[in-house]
């Protein structure tokens, strides 16, 4: 029973491994996680009798860990080096991470105000009596990218600081600066739309439609999708 526990896989005993190093390991499923073990059976023979008795009783994996941790840990393979160690809970301190993943909350309590704060970043424009300014603002109030005809570098090249040509050129300067600051892969320019926030309930496994998350899609998948769609379009055009 003990050897059967270790070597059973979802398919009939065959493993389809990706790297040549994986051939030295068994992969066994544990309900929620896969256990990767080395093929040396010496360590299992030591715990053969004890473990078989455990498996026949109905206990979950976590109970194993609490009751006899030393035997349970022998099932996991020896790591090749100490760099396998990782914090249990890793916290990404990047404050812009959640916005990039579209998980961050947009402030939604200001629906009675106008304008509302239901955004991550917003493009704003102010027309003063002597100067024009344009900036990109966060919902907390921080100005991320700023450009104004106040600045001497811009004012030098303009006829007047308030007219339409000044506004046009201000826009170009602001786009150039925000590109340099936040050059993203998706769009070469600056778009005026913001995608909606991803809600938690959409990601539940019982939901009848699980949308694809943006971080699960790789560039290769996008290329393949584009190539296939192009082929289909060509076929339609030919017909």
């Amino acid at each position, binding site marked *: 029973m003990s050897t059967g*526990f270790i070597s*059973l896989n979802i398919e009939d005993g065959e493993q*389809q491994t990706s*790297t040549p*190093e994986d051939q030295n390991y068994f992969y066994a*499923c544990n*309900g*929620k*996680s*896969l256990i*990767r073990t080395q093929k040396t059976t010496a360590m299992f023979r030591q715990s053969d009798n004890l473990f078989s008795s455990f*498996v026949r009783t109905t*206990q979950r994996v976590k109970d194993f860990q609490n009751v006899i941790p030393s035997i349970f840990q022998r099932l996991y393979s020896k*790591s*090749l*080096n100490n*760099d*396998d160690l*990782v*914090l249990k*809970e*890793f*916290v*990404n*301190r*990047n*404050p*812009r991470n*959640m916005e990039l*993943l579209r998980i961050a909350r947009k402030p939604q309590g200001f629906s009675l105000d106008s304008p509302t704060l239901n955004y991550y970043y917003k493009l704003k424009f102010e027309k003063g009596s002597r100067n024009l300014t344009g900036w990109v603002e966060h919902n907390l109030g*921080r*100005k*991320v990218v*700023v450009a104004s005809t106040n*600045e*001497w*570098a*811009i004012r*030098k*090249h303009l*006829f007047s600081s308030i007219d339409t*040509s*000044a506004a046009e*050129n201000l826009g*170009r*300067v602001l786009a*150039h*600066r925000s590109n*340099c*600051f*936040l*050059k993203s*892969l998706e769009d070469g320019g600056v778009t005026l739309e913001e995608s909606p926030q991803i809600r938690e309930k959409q990601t*539940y*496994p*019982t939901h*009848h*439609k699980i949308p694809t998350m943006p*971080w699960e899609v*790789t560039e290769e998948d996008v290329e393949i999708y584009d190539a296939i769609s192009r082929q289909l379009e060509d076929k339609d055009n030919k017909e």
Partner: protein
Amino acid sequence: MSNIIKKLRLLSSPTTFYIQVRNSRMNPLVPIQRKFIVPELFFSLEERLNETNERVQDPEKYSKVNIGFSGALRKPRKQEKFRTIQDLRNNTELEKLAHQGTLKVDLEVIQKEWENSLKPYHVKELAENYEIYKHLFGDYAFFYPVVTMNILYDFNEELMSPVYYGNLLKPKEVKSEPNVQFQSDSESLWSLIFTSPDDNLLEKDSEMIHWFIGNIPGNDVKKGEEIVDYMQPIPPKGTGFHRYCFVLYKQNKKIDFSRYRKSKPLRMGILMVLSACKKIWVNLWRKHLSLQERTFNTFDFYKEFEDDLTPAGLSWFQADYDVTLINFFHKTLHILDLHRDPKEMQKLILLKRLKNVHPFQGEKPLYPFPQALPVDKKWPIWLKNEIRDERDGKGRYRDMYREDDRPYIHEGKAVINVLPFKSLK
């Protein structure tokens, strides 16, 4: 809830709490653990008042300090300004273009002038947005990045990926060392550090250093001492975007950084001899690529060399996970995954599905109560659960069935979404 929450220290990192909840429906005796993170907001009135009083009495204690150079704005004098504006107003050609709407300003000229005047202020604001000063130098330090660095990675023979101030890159673009350029005298010494405050997976509140070059004479980065070899960024899957910062320091004199030196691998000539003894090579290579040796703290580093170093330049980018990292983790770092590749698993499940689906007859109808058949008692629990998931089409077996034609899924847990019963067609 109030019984479980303990009193927190001031300025501590957020803690996680575990609460036991009884689920009365299924198993009243088995507690379910729910975990959530609580920020450091539960201070008592006394503590809060003490802090506000301190700030009022001793404002210098809580004010921020500029540890770099002053971003001196070189403004033109008022008379010069006035004259140039008068000239512009009198320029009839400009007036024509402005009225027609065809006045197009040269953006590159403007950028050069902006770099000399207002750029350090704008970049400092951006860096505070990304909390770079906070995580590198602490709560009370900042600097104006007076020196602009042009950093370019060679992606292809044709393409280059630059590093600006927070742009998004992928690890495959950033594998090898970049080309760093900045303006300086031939006599001054600089040191370049490439760190990431988010990449350290083992220690909280510390960074991982990817590249360190010290005692750079003038412009030439290649003539400087390579104290830590370049290692590509390693953002793991699921954590999102990590920040990677280049910090340029100006040195007063030549500094001995031997404390931070990492052991290098042997050269290629000696490698050929030792290629037979693979183990030795692997161990030596691994020494300079060990991640635990690369933990770094710019706060402590700057404290040590405070008198001789001043930060002068800053630029950063953000990187996400990439498929090319799998090979890097497995083969060079020798860190293997605990789980199989999800694409492999999807392939296996697809093959399973194709066994049951006939190409011409289509899919078979589904029976309404798939769990009615018993599962063999001899199997262990984890295997029984797998078989039950397969029958229900749950979890990784979700792709065994098409969107709407799947068996009824019933979960007796805390109910969030309960599907209606689906009948056979």
